């Protein structure tokens, strides 16, 4: 070995050491890890650019029970900020205490989404927003009555005029305003993100091991990918039907392909510690039960996604995975509920 190559070689060793300490567990694959960083830009819709007036209007509409037939239910009744923007129920409760067939997903980071609902039947937040207002078993509101009602409220007349000048109070403007507000509901600083930025003590050793399992042995990253821990894709992970509930075909209702039977959209894992119960039908109460599900390789084996298999995790490894998921909770909820327009 010449002197020059020796020098070069030791230089490489130094670089490897520096990178090694920076990521703490030297066997992390950088490319695999970097995908979990937040995109630098705020996600906006080109056809509905955000403005403070639009967000303020959307926020009022989101919290306003006058958007429902009975004037008692708002979007926030089910997507409650105090409960991780979900409702803490196995499946949602709608109009007249009716039990809906699916769980309420969080709306956190829905700005990053490209397909919405457990079966992916909606393609944008604008497209989604009017659905629950008019659904009989949800807010059960007639659109004509809603437009009339909102126009009698002076505060709303002003807000719509500010937000969408010249458009008037229309279903389209309502949808766009709500979507604009939803795009501001994003998870903030989490211990996981602080750790990834180099703060070694932001998370426990168990959580670090859990992340390693997530990327490796347990291969959760086959589906829970990117900043929002979802591939925006559809998978059948073999979740059982809850006793007394009808079988749910999930994505197959939208796309009649064999593999889509019982497939559901991969949910985000950000804020997941706050959004129990889990799965489209709320079958699991704890993250421990969820990890056990994956460890078994799912329950309903026909049409199972090919990435699902028994994981043979040790008790400690299961704990580590749960500890990791708990580091995905924003440090605090900084949110002021709006005073509604009169």
């Amino acid at each position, binding site marked *: 070995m010449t002197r020059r190559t020796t020098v070069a070689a030791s230089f490489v060793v130094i670089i490897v050491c520096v990178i090694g300490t920076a990521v703490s567990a030297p066997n992390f694959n950088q490319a695999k890890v970097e995908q979990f960083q937040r995109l630098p830009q705020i996600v906006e819709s080109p056809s509905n650019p955000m403005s403070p007036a639009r967000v303020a209007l959307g926020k009022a509409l989101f919290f306003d029970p006058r958007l429902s037939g009975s004037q008692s239910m708002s979007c926030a009744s089910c997507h409650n900020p105090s409960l991780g923007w979900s409702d803490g129920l196995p499946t949602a409760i709608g109009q007249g205490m009716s039990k809906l067939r699916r769980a309420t997903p969080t709306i956190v980071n829905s700005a990053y989404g*490209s*397909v919405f609902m457990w079966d992916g039947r909606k393609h944008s937040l604008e497209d989604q927003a009017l659905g629950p207002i008019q659904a009989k078993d949800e807010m059960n509101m007639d659109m004509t009555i809603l437009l009339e009602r909102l126009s009698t409220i002076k505060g709303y007349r002003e807000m719509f005029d500010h937000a969408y000048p010249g458009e008037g109070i229309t279903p389209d403007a309502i949808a766009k305003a709500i979507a604009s507000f939803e795009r501001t509901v994003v998870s903030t600083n989490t211990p996981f993100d602080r750790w990834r930025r180099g703060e070694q003590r932001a998370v426990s050793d168990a959580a670090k091991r859990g992340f390693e399992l997530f990327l490796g042995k347990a291969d959760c990253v086959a589906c829970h990918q990117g900043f929002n821990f979802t*591939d*925006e894709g559809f998978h059948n992970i073999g979740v059982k039907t809850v006793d007394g509930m009808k079988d749910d075909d999930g994505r197959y209702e939208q796309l009649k*392909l*064999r*593999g889509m039977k019982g497939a559901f959209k991969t949910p985000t894992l950000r804020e997941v510690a706050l959004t129990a119960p889990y799965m489209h039908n709320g079958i699991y109460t704890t993250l421990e039960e969820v990890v056990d599900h994956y460890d078994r390789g799912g329950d309903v084996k026909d049409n199972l996604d*090919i*990435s699902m298999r028994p994981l043979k995790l040790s008790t400690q490894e299961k704990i580590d995975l749960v500890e990791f998921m708990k580091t995905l909770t924003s440090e605090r909820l900084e949110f002021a509920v709006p005073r509604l327009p009169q």
Partner: protein
Amino acid sequence: MKIKYCLGVALIACAFDASAAEYEIAQRNKAFAPVYLKIKVGDVVNFVNDDPFAHNVYSLSETKSFDVGSYPKGQGKQITFDKPGQVFVECAIHPFMKMKIEVTQ
């Protein structure tokens, strides 16, 4: 009768023409690459999964409708395009993965 038969044979011969070309479409970073391909009737397209997780490939187009199920990294699925027209190809797992194949005579 005889003429008809001959014509049939000729057509089949055309379809299995030895000059049928083979193309490869990669599924990489949750996208098809390339996203547009022009081929001739009888050509074969191999869809190869370059990602470390499963993909699917299907089409509900009139020209060619198929669904090959899902397959892991490194595997490929071959489809022969036997009619002229446009084929919209998608991945059922990741609905934003889309591409178009134009099949010409």
